[in-house]
């Protein structure tokens, strides 16, 4: 993970300048960094911070506060998520030398199946290769066998520890400022002062209350309630029924947003997003014919494990200050997609800033905030993309057109797959929403869609249900 020092020479000089300019607000040899939260954001930050510091010969001490061991099955050991590591993140991590071993990847995904009331269609990965990882964030659902599941979060936390970080298995209970430095106190009364505090607590704990101190002008991100559950079907049934595909649903059910079923070993994970998500919405979804026919015998099995976690839907206000920075979900995340990828980006931007520039408000504003801002701006475009998806979801004429266009593209080897690539990137989070929107604005796209909408609406206009059986 370390980079050649010759390559970093100019950066090291830059860092030196920053240290001189900001005096005590740059990290020095022996500086202490505290990271609250050992989810993906906290671990990515630590891995990159230590690698970059090592390449400069800078000796830092990092403590990660994380009460979870990620070894308990069920919600206690898990960071509640669909567990999809996006195609782009899998590739970037591989290029960074972070590979996800088969013990962590419950299922490599090579295709998406879009389920609608007017047909299903399979969208194959552009490279016909498993480049999306379905992982457990903890040690599997409550009812799983006591298997050696290597959860994703545990894998990253172990990597952080192997790079020299100290994992403190305690919750951070309070944060005070002593002579301009953050002090973290744990429930057992132990307290540590840090030169930099990194907040990576996500949005599913009370940790945001630790920072109500108005001096930092930080305001926590807006969140939304979601639903996740697991069904135990057995590995053979999962393989035969759900295969190596992620199953997404575009159904005209009131308040339903995004819905997906992800195969993972002997379980499948269901994730639901929607407005005011409650049990009624979950029931309505599970009662729909499109969902039921995904399961063997059309019967929905009992839930093995379920929870209603929150998701970041709007960036935090000013997620940085002198000697403090908020990363991952507790700062900014991509809307409804690739939250782990956002954690990677914001964590890396914060690590780079801390090592190469400094840890003052101004350093974070200049070098960390642009990465967050880019996500935030893309999220504005995402709202337009999801607005259009919403329209399609509630119009059977449009749904027919979309399914027909996609099925035809998938049936033609070598076609440029305009709708397929738009849907693929929308579902997988593989490309910025800006790129997706741009592609839909090319003149051929609306023309082809309009043609497929018309053809799909004609009585014999090209078998709107041809997509059934996954577009084959």
């Amino acid at each position, binding site marked *: 993970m370390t980079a050649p020092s010759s*390559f970093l020479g100019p950066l090291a000089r830059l860092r030196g300048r920053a240290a001189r300019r900001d005096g005590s607000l740059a990290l020095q040899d022996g500086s202490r960094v505290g990271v609250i939260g050992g989810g993906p954001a906290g671990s990515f930050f630590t891995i990159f911070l230590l690698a970059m510091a090592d390449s400069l010969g800078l000796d830092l001490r990092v403590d990660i506060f994380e009460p979870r061991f990620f070894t308990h099955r069920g919600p206690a050991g898990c960071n509640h998520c669909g567990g999809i590591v996006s195609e*782009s993140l899998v590739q970037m991590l*591989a290029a960074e*030398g972070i590979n996800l071993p088969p013990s962590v*990847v*419950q299922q490599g995904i090579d295709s998406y199946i879009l389920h609608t009331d007017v047909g299903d269609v399979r969208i194959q990965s552009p490279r016909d*290769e498993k480049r999306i990882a379905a992982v457990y964030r903890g040690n599997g659902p409550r009812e799983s066998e006591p298997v050696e599941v290597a959860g994703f979060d545990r894998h990253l936390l172990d990597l952080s520890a192997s790079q020299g970080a100290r994992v403190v298995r305690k919750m951070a209970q309070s944060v005070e400022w002593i002579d301009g430095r953050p002090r973290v106190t744990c429930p057992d009364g132990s307290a540590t002062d840090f030169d930099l505090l990194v907040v990576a607590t996500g949005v599913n704990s009370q940790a945001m209350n630790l920072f109500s101190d108005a001096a930092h002008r930080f305001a926590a991100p807006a969140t939304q309630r979601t639903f996740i559950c697991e069904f135990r079907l057995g590995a053979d049934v999962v393989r035969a029924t759900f295969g190596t595909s992620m199953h997404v649903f575009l159904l005209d059910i009131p308040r339903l947003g995004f819905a997906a079923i992800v195969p993972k070993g002997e379980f499948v994970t269901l994730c639901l997003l929607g407005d005011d998500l409650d049990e009624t919405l979950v029931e309505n979804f599970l009662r729909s014919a499109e969902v039921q026919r995904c399961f063997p015998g059309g019967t929905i099995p009992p839930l093995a494990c379920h929870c209603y976690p929150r998701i970041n839907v709007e960036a935090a206000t000013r997620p940085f200050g002198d000697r403090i920075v908020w990363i991952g979900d507790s700062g900014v995340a991509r809307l409804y997609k690739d939250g782990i990828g956002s954690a990677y980006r914001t964590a890396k931007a914060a690590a780079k800033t801390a090592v190469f520039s400094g840890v003052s408000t101004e350093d974070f504003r200049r070098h960390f905030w642009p990465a967050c801002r880019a996500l935030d701006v893309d999220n504005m475009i995402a709202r337009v993309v999801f607005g259009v998806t919403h329209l399609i979801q509630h119009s059977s004429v449009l749904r027919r057109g979309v399914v027909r266009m996609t099925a035809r593209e998938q049936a033609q080897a070598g076609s440029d797959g305009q709708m397929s690539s738009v849907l693929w990137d929308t579902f997988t989070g593989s490309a910025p929403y800006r790129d997706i929107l741009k592609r839909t604005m090319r003149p051929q796209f609306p023309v082809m869609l309009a043609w497929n909408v018309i053809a799909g609406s004609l009585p014999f206009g090209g078998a709107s249900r041809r997509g059934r059986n996954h577009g084959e």
Partner: protein
Amino acid sequence: MASNALGRVYADGETIVTQGEAGDCMFTLQEGRLEVLVTLPGRPPKRVAVMEKGAIFGEMAIFEREVRSATVRALGEARVLTIDKKNFLRRIQEDPTLAFTLVKMMSQRIRHLTLGVGERRVGPQGPRTDGPERRRL
């Protein structure tokens, strides 16, 4: 090899990259071993390196528009993950440090190559043709 794993599994002897072909991606070897073969005009293919798990190869296609400089084949079953050029270059624009691992790996290869040249000149056993990641792709 685990059927749930990422990437694509290549059978023993199957070709991943062919010398002379244009490339639009690089690769990471997730599991298994690969051999690197170079064919010079009028000569049979010659193995110049063996790559082990974790190796990144094909990166020259990311930075140049040249054709592949060698053929890469699976030595036994091997699992390989592709990294797209477009995706990777876009991310490098946003985050230049993403290139650090590649730069480090390329500098290690140059070091090996330099040592190899030295060995060839002075080594008691003559030139070695085999060795991990000796040749850039």
